[in-house]
């Protein structure tokens, strides 16, 4: 990958640049965060002309290595005000990588109120008018682009909430089945909307293969790596069978499943929304229990969920979405939850922020608790159309909480807290508090060690060891997010030594390098520190690395646990 494409939306010009030496060893999150930190003024308005939207495939993306097809998107987030990286599957990452495109940087914003579409080919990028796409949701955009070009065209698109610059808006990526994966968190769809780009199409005709410096070494490492994924019970069996939603029951049994907007740690109707029930339902209806979000995914945690008649409702139906609507917003019918998930794909909002903000709207009395039909209407007709109510909701959980004068508002740095209660799973609370991204479970997934007993065991209800656990995982994750690998490779990597060493071998074989495990850790640390520094310059301080106050005085049953870390204990996180 030797090209940087720079699109200036202020004067509608495109530049092809070579990769500067200091960016050559970077990919994915490492590269998007480095570019944002270097080029975006930390105090700029995220929706103004000085923010930049950067896309970068990972270091291994486009190679035959399993799980390597993830795309990173980065910018200053309009939701959190922090630096943001969000990665997604779909076809775009592998296309860009094979085209030799290391990063696509979009800067400036047009003076005129006209919409555009970017078309990326081996010849560069053309900026096309797109006023005719305005008002369309994502599936309609994908349909139109498939007809305009061919079903092979890669598509990145925003729906109406993105056009209207709502902070819950995501960027949707077409997957190999013409469905959608998402750069979900942090409102990056609003940044794309602020630059008046409705969609980006990618035609990879003429693209070659990603060059590999040492093909023999690569093949050997790729085999060991793939074997470790299939050998580990979580990635080899659990995820493909039950998807991520297997977690409903385990979090419920452990008392860490946030229920009715974080009032309780267990949910009475957990069985109706569990991974086991979902699996049986999919099998009975003839959907697909296994599905990959990109070619080359062998774990296949995704699935295709259909209705009783076998008609598609949604895919990529994740635990966090099902938790957020099912337990936290009390919707008992999995079909209603699936329809909400499909709607969130279509209108283009983050399905975690979307689920958490709907529960917050229930807390406010705007939607009755557990009313899945009303949630569908609100998504489609309020948020999806940008009505005044839709704009209040579509700006995220924190905004809804302020609008309705609520106290129990589960956010850190204004980003909705996902599916694990920080009082009863304390390690994840440290990740929420300290992550450079705002409340983000994937940034340092302590659930592995706190709940699942992967990579050892640290008691979720005690404070001991949590800061160190979160730190080590956040460092490792920053590095993994730079490779283009899906984060689920962490399960085998935590338990099977060859898994991690073969991953490093894959990078070395591709680039002719001699990196060691220490180099990878150093890379992770460097990325975290760079992101942290950006946030500090943007005005954040240790006082922002805190959970909402209610967690410290509302005990969560069944353990009646509270959040009891002192400020000093939390701040120890950055001591590395």
């Amino acid at each position: 990958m030797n090209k940087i494409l720079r699109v200036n939306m202020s004067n509608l010009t495109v530049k092809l640049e070579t990769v500067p030496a200091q960016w050559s060893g970077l990919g994915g999150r490492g590269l998007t965060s480095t570019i944002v930190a270097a080029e975006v003024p930390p105090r700029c308005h995220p929706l103004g002309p000085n923010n930049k939207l950067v896309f970068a495939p990972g270091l291994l993306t486009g190679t035959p290595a399993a799980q390597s097809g993830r795309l990173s998107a980065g910018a200053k987030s309009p939701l959190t005000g922090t630096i943001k990286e969000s990665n997604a599957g779909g076809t775009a990452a592998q296309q860009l990588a094979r085209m030799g495109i290391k990063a696509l940087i979009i800067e400036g914003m047009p003076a005129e109120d006209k919409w555009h579409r970017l078309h990326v080919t081996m010849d560069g990028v053309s900026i096309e008018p797109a006023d005719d796409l305005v008002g369309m949701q994502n599936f309609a955009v994908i349909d139109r682009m498939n007809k305009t070009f061919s079903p092979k065209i890669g598509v990145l698109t925003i729906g109406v909430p993105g056009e209207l610059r709502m902070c819950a808006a995501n960027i949707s990526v077409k997957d190999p089945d013409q469905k959608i994966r998402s750069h979900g968190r942090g409102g990056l769809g609003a940044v794309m909307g602020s630059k008046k780009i409705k969609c980006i199409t990618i035609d990879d005709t003429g693209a070659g293969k990603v060059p590999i410096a040492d093909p023999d070494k690569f093949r050997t490492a790729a085999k060991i790596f793939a074997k470790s994924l299939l050998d580990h019970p979580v990635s080899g069996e659990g995820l493909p069978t039950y998807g991520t939603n297997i977690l409903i029951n385990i979090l419920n049994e452990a008392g860490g499943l946030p229920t009715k907007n974080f009032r309780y740690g267990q949910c009475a109707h957990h069985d109706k929304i569990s991974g086991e029930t979902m699996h049986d339902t999919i099998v009975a209806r003839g959907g697909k229990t296994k599905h990959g979000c990109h070619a080359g995914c062998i774990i296949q945690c995704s699935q295709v969920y259909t209705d009783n008649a076998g008609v598609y409702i949604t895919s990529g139906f994740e635990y966090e979405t099902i938790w957020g609507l099912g337990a936290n917003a009390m919707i008992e019918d999995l079909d209603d939850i699936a329809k909400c998930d499909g709607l969130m794909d279509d209108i283009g909002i983050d399905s975690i922020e979307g689920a958490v903000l709907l529960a917050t709207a229930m807390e406010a009395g705007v939607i009755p608790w557990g009313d899945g039909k009303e949630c569908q209407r609100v998504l489609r007709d309020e948020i999806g159309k940008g009505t005044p109510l839709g704009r209040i909701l579509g700006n995220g959980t924190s905004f809804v909480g302020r609008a309705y004068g609520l106290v129990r508002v589960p956010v850190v740095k204004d980003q909705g807290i996902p599916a694990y209660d920080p009082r009863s799973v304390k390690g994840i609370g440290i990740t929420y508090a300290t992550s450079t991204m705002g409340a983000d479970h994937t940034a340092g997934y302590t659930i592995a060690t706190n709940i699942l007993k992967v990579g050892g065991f640290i008691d979720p209800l005690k404070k001991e060891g949590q800061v160190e656990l979160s730190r080590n995982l956040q460092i490792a994750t920053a590095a993994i997010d730079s490779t283009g690998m899906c984060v689920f490779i962490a399960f085998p990597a935590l338990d099977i030594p060859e898994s991690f060493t073969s991953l490093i071998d894959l990078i070395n074989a591709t680039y002719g390098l001699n990196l060691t495990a220490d180099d990878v850790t150093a890379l992770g640390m460097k990325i975290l520190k760079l992101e942290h520094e950006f946030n500090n310059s943007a005005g954040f301080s240790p006082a922002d690395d805190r959970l909402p106050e209610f967690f410290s005085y509302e005990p969560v049953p069944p353990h009646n646990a509270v959040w009891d870390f002192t400020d000093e204990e939390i701040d120890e996180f950055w001591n590395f």
Partner: protein
Amino acid sequence: MKVTIKLFAGFRENRFRVEERDLPPGFTVADLLRELGINEPELGVALINARHVLPGQELHDGEVISLFPKVGGG
């Protein structure tokens, strides 16, 4: 003593979802696994009353034990 046993994911196959059993005093998690025909290395997580326990843990009257194979998500 009466103990409620909850099984999850693949452990349910050819067994049950939830059952109450009368067990002799001193019965451990490992004993229960043996009785259920589950090999200990297959066990991912065992929880008694929502707390993680090891196979050596003794069960007591009125407790709820939840058994999971090695699974995960994220």
